[in-house]
C-alpha cells in the first residue's frame, strides 16, 4: 500500500469533509466505548489482570530469543515447519515458495494485520495467486480495493448502504430485487459467496493472536468462525505472526484472552478462540496436511531495549483507537499506513521511519484516554512524546514551531524580562479585546482564530497585581 502518512494533514482535511466517513465514525464512539467500560466494570479482577498481562509480556520481551526457540521446537515436534523472516520481502518470498510448491491458485485468509503490513494480497495477485479475505469486514474492503481503517473493524469507515451497493455491484449471481437492507442479510450473502471459496482454496493463511511456547500452538480469535474454516479446510495452513506474539504458556494466553475481547468489543470472549498445533495427525478427522509458521521481525527486534519496547506488549485489541478523539475525527485511513490511532502513532514511526510518519505522534492532544484503557498498560502518550524528542533532536519538526518555541523559551527562562514584557503587553492586548472581551481576528494567531474566538486578557497580569497587593500589605504593616 502506498504510504500517505507524510500528508497526514491533507488526509485529515479530506476525512473531515467526507460526509460518509463522518457518519460511519459515529459508530466507533457509540459502538465500543460503553461496551468496554461495562465489561471492565463487570470483572472484579480486571485491573489485576492488566497488571498480570503486562508482567507476562514484559517477561517475554526480556527473553524473546528463548521463548521463540522453545516455540519453534514444539512446532517442529508437532510436525510443523517454522520459517524465520527478517523483512516483509523475506516473508512474502517464503509464502510464495510454499504456494508454488503446492501449485496453489487460491488462498483463503483469516484477518491479519501483519499481512497488510507485508502487502501480501497485492503481491500474491501479481504472482498469479488469488487471495480471498474471509473476515466480513476484510472481504468488503477487498471488494472495494481498500485497506482496513481499523485493526479489529477493518470496514468501520463504511456505512451499511455503501456495502449494499458493493454487494449488488459484485455479486451479480443473485437476483437484483433481493432485499439487502439488514446487516444480517449482507452477512448471509457474504457467507454464501465465501462458503465455496473455502473448499476451493489450496492454502489457508491466518495471523495469530498468541503463539504458545510450551505447546507450539497458535491461537486466533474471531467472531465469525472464518478463521476455523480458513485453517482446517485447505491442504496447507500458513500461520504468519510477528515475533512479539509469543507467550510462555497456555495459562498466560488465557489470562490475556480475558482482557482481549473485553477491551476490544466488550465481549467476555470472542465467539471463536481457535487453537492450532501442527498438521493433521493420523487420528484427526480433519486439518491441513502441511503446517507452516512464519515468524516475522520486520523492525520489531530493533525496538527491543529502546524507549519503544513497551509498544511490543500490544495485543491489537483496538481499545486505544476506539477511545481516541483524533481517530474519531479523521478515521483510520488518514494515518496513512497499516496501524491507525495511538498505537499507530507509536508503531508507524518505528516500522516505516519517523521521517515519514512524523505527523502521527504529534497529532495527539495527549488526553491520555488511550493509556487509560490499554489492557497492556502501554504508556502511549509517553512514547509519542519520545518520538517528538527524536524529531526535535533531528530537526524534523517545522521551522515555525521551532522558532516559535525558542522565542517563548527565551522569555520563559528570564523571569524579570518576562515580567516586564507581559506587564506592558497584556493590558494593551486586553484593551484591544474591546467590550466583547474576545478577538475574532488576530495577527499571528490564525491557527486559533480560524476556528474559534480568542478570549481577551483581562488586562494587568496576575503577577503585576500581586506585587501591588504585597506592597499594599507591607505599607499597612509599616
Amino acid at each position, binding site marked *: 500500500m502506498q504510504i500517505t502518512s507524510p500528508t497526514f*494533514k491533507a488526509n*485529515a*482535511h479530506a476525512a*473531515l469533509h467526507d460526509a460518509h466517513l463522518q457518519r460511519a465514525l459515529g459508530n466507533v464512539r457509540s459502538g465500543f466505548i460503553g461496551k468496554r467500560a461495562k465489561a471492565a466494570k463487570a470483572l472484579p479482577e480486571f485491573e489485576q489482570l492488566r497488571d498480570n498481562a503486562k508482567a507476562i509480556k514484559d517477561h517475554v520481551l526480556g527473553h524473546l530469543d528463548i521463548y521463540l526457540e522453545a516455540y519453534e521446537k514444539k512446532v517442529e515436534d508437532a510436525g510443523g515447519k517454522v520459517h524465520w523472516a527478517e523483512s516483509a520481502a523475506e516473508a512474502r518470498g517464503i509464502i510464495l515458495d510454499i504456494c508454488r510448491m503446492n501449485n496453489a491458485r487460491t488462498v483463503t485468509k483469516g484477518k491479519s494485520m501483519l499481512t497488510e503490513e507485508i502487502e501480501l494480497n497485492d503481491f500474491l495477485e501479481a504472482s498469479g495467486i488469488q487471495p480471498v479475505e474471509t473476515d466480513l469486514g476484510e472481504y468488503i474492503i477487498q471488494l472495494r480495493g481498500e485497506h482496513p481503517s481499523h485493526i479489529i473493524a477493518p470496514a468501520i469507515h463504511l456505512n451499511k448502504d455503501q456495502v449494499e451497493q458493493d454487494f449488488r455491484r459484485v455479486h451479480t449471481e443473485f437476483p437484483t430485487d433481493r432485499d439487502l437492507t439488514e446487516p444480517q442479510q449482507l452477512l448471509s450473502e457474504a457467507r454464501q459467496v465465501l462458503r465455496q471459496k473455502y473448499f476451493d482454496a489450496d492454502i489457508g493463511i491466518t495471523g495469530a493472536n498468541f503463539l504458545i511456547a510450551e505447546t507450539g500452538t497458535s491461537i486466533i480469535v474471531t467472531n465469525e468462525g472464518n478463521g476455523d474454516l480458513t485453517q482446517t479446510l485447505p491442504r496447507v495452513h500458513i500461520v504468519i505472526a510477528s515475533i512479539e506474539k509469543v507467550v510462555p504458556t497456555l495459562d498466560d494466553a488465557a489470562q490475556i484472552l480475558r482482557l482481549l475481547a473485553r477491551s476490544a468489543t466488550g465481549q467476555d470472549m470472542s465467539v471463536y478462540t481457535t487453537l492450532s498445533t501442527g498438521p493433521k495427525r493420523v487420528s484427526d478427522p480433519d486439518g491441513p496436511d502441511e503446517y507452516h509458521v512464519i515468524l516475522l521481525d520486520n523492525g520489531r527486534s530493533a525496538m527491543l531495549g529502546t524507549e519503544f519496547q513497551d509498544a511490543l506488549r500490544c495485543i491489537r485489541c483496538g481499545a486505544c483507537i476506539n477511545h481516541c*478523539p*483524533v481517530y*474519531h*475525527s*479523521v478515521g483510520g485511513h488518514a494515518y496513512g499506513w497499516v496501524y491507525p490511532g495511538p498505537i499507530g502513532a507509536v508503531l508507524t514511526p518505528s516500522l516505516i521511519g519517523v521521517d515519514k510518519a512524523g505527523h502521527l505522534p*504529534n*497529532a*495527539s*492532544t*495527549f*488526553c*491520555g*484516554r488511550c*493509556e487509560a484503557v490499554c489492557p497492556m498498560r502501554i504508556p502511549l502518550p509517553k512514547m509519542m*512524546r519520545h*518520538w*517528538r*524528542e527524536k*524529531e*526535535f*533532536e533531528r530537526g524534523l*519538526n517545522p521551522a515555525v*514551531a521551532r522558532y516559535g*518555541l525558542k522565542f*517563548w*523559551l527565551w*522569555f*520563559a*527562562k528570564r*523571569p524579570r524580562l*518576562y*515580567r516586564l514584557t*507581559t506587564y506592558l503587553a*497584556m493590558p494593551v492586548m486586553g484593551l484591544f479585546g474591546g*467590550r466583547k*472581551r*474576545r478577538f*475574532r481576528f488576530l495577527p499571528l494567531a490564525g*491557527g*486559533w482564530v*480560524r*476556528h*474559534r*474566538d*480568542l*478570549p*481577551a*486578557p*483581562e*488586562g*494587568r*497580569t*496576575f*503577577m503585576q497585581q*500581586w*506585587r501591588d497587593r504585597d506592597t499594599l500589605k507591607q505599607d499597612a504593616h509599616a
Partner: protein
Amino acid sequence: MTQAASPPPRVGLFVTCLVDLFRPSVGFAAVKLMEDAGCVVDAPAAQTCCGQPAYNSGDREDTRDIAKSTIEAFEDFDYVVAPSGSCAGMLKKHYPGLFHGDAVWEPRAQAFSEKVHELISFLTDVLGVTQVPATASGKATYHDSCSGLRELGIHGQPRQLIASVKGLKLAEMADADVCCGFGGTFCVKYGEISNAIVEKKAANIAASGADMLLAGDLGCLMNMAGKLKRQGSGIEVRHVAEVLAGLTDQPPIGGK
C-alpha cells in the same frame, strides 16, 4: 485540617502562564479559597511557565532548565498549588523523570513533586474542605480536563464543591470526560482536527441545558469559550475556582 497549634501551611501559588496573562482573577480566586481554608499564600516572582510547551515539543533540555528554576523558586514552601490539572500534572508527574539518573536533581525534583497539588483537589483532599460559602444562580456543567482527570484523578472533588454553592445546579453533559481538543500547541498545529473535537464538545455543552460551563484548566476553557462564542452561544464560561470563591465580578471568559 491542621491543628490550631501548628503554624498555617505555607503555599506557593504556581499561577500558570495562562492565568497570569489572560485571567488573573482565577489566581485571586485560588488565593481566596486557600486563605479562607487557613493557608498563607505567596506567588514567587521567579515563576514563568511549567515548561510543558517545550516538553511536549520534544525539547527536553530546555524543559530541564525551566524545571530547575521552578523547583528553585518553590522549594521552600510546604505546598505548591496550581489552578490547573495540566500544569500541576507537569510539575508533579513529569518533573522527576526529566532528571532520571541525576544524583542532585532527581531527588530534588522528587521532593518538590510530592508537594505539588492541583487547586481543587488540594482544597478537598489535603485541607479537608467540603463546602464553600459561595452563591450563584442557574445551571452549570463541568468539563473534566484530561490531565487533571487521568494524571491526578480529579473527578469528584470539583463536583462536590460545586454542589455546595447555594443556588447552583449541576447539569452533567454527555462525554464530560472526553478531551475538548485543546492539547496545547495541538490546537494550532492541527487546528482542523482540534476544531472537529471542540465542535463535538460544544454540542454536548449546549445539549446539557446549562447556562454556565466550568472547568479547572484555562487552556481548555479558552478553547471551549472561543468555540461557543464563535457559534454565538450565550453560555457563560468560567474557571471553577472563580465560582467557588464567589469572585465573579469579571466578565466571563470570552465575554458574555
